[in-house]
């Protein structure tokens, strides 16, 4: 299903102001975990009197594996009397993955980063390495998505709701948390939420309103954080 990031983002609780607090918290956690672009539609329902938290989320098509060429330019360079592989960073988002990969392959001593955007790699055959490096896969966002969604749910849920249940099938993530045993009707309700979310038609005007009316622009911040350089 083709979806815009966070095209539906609703939080329900009996008291509207309390729902607004949790929408903010959800946006913050999405932003912290860089998940805003991965989630298409999300609905959360909280029933504090029953100690119940329900979340249904439809995830967008997962991102493709990231090659070094997707985030940096690789070339050879001659500096201080030595040949190096020079990597010029374009997208800093995958920097930790790149560094981890280079350290593992060349050892930290041979990976020199003099400034934020440039890495020099000392190697015996820089030409060959410079040709091969761009094709290497350094991150696979879809692989981490499941773990990230669970981390997201655990962080966003009210504290103390330690009885948890989740499913993750076909890009549909459902999460229930409670203080007591989760009843079958509660998981049925979560499934119904998921079905409604699937059938919903996002209203562009409503989405725009969310962006404009939300005082601190939580949704916008969640999206912006994705591509922060």
């Amino acid at each position: 299903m083709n979806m815009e990031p966070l095209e539906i983002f609703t939080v329900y609780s009996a008291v509207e102001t309390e729902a607004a607090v949790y929408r903010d918290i959800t946006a913050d956690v999405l932003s912290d975990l860089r998940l805003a672009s991965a989630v298409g539609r999300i609905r959360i329902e909280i029933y504090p009197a029953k100690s119940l938290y329900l979340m249904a989320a439809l995830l967008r098509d997962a991102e493709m594996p990231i090659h070094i060429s997707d985030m940096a330019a690789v070339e050879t360079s001659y500096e201080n009397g030595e040949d190096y592989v020079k990597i010029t960073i374009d997208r800093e988002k995958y920097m930790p993955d790149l560094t981890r990969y280079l350290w593992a392959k060349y050892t930290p001593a041979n990976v020199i980063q003099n400034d934020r955007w440039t890495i020099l790699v000392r190697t015996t055959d820089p030409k060959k390495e410079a040709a091969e490096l761009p094709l290497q896969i350094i991150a696979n966002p879809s692989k981490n998505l499941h773990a990230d969604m669970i981390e997201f749910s655990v962080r966003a849920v009210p504290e103390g709701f330690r009885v948890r249940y989740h499913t993750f099938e076909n890009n549909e993530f459902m999460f229930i948390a409670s203080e007591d045993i989760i009843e079958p009707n509660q998981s049925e309700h979560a499934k119904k939420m998921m079905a409604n979310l699937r059938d919903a038609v996002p209203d562009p005007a409503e989405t725009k309103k969310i962006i404009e009316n939300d005082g601190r622009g939580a949704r916008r911040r969640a999206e912006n954080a994705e591509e922060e350089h």
Partner: protein
Amino acid sequence: MGTVYEPYVFNGGVYKHGRIIELLEDVGGYLVNKMITLTEVTMDMVIPEEDVPLIEELAKRQLGTLTKSPLTGVEIAVVSPTLASHHLPHSACDIAEYLRHPGAKTTMIGLARGMGRRVSLNDDFERRLINEHDLALYCLGAFKDCIVNKKPRLFEGVEVPIVATGGPGDIRAEEISGADMYIGNMGRRSHRMRSADEINALDVMNDRVAELVEEMRQNQAKDPPAVLPARAMKEIENQIPEIGKSLAPSPLVLKMSGVRVKLPYDLFHERVREVEFDEGPKLGELADITKSKMNDYILVQIKPKSEVGFEI
């Protein structure tokens, strides 16, 4: 009638700030805390009411500022139901940091089993630790139902005044059993409190806590401590030089009814008991000196005048 002391904070340059300290000592005031950051110095002090203009004038000459700090000499326990990411670092740390602006010393306490609605509770050690403070401020969450119906269980056994903070703005303190005050528009956050609304809520919190402290001070004035805690603190500092070697960030913490001395109890409690005042009495005669629940520090709780029979 005894001297009335007012709490103030001096902010200014390090250059010749010793003059302020000298004048403060000359007029009979006490320096509670001094912190130097690069070329700036921040000093918490209590000044005799009638001599405030003198210090104010000197502060002005030194191009510094002297502002009233209503929470100087107050030790506040900032209690969050747990130490999990739901409370820390935001909003509990923001609250504790903001309370320190008007001079309070804060201790952050995360309860071991404070989470949730049905299972939340506090234990004896935690209650005793909280009771060592002048005031307990609880950082609660976003749901009115929890704050009113479930969380008061965390207040059981806490004898110091209790301030509850939370998200909903429409709760009255009387609705929360055991709380002396409720401050809204705070509650759970996943980001630093920095928007205008959030800073405003923190300002309101400081003002209201200051009101409560003022009320507590007025009650205390009816039967004041046998010796001014700031004076006891000064004497401990002068007579036990080892305090200078304590690695704690504030080795002596002034409280409304005493002092927390951050030295090992077993090694130093006898010497604290022997601290002598010019008028003759020793600190052991004027105060209960016990082992603190915080590490193995020494807690000096000064007895009220009515119990000792005199005031120095």
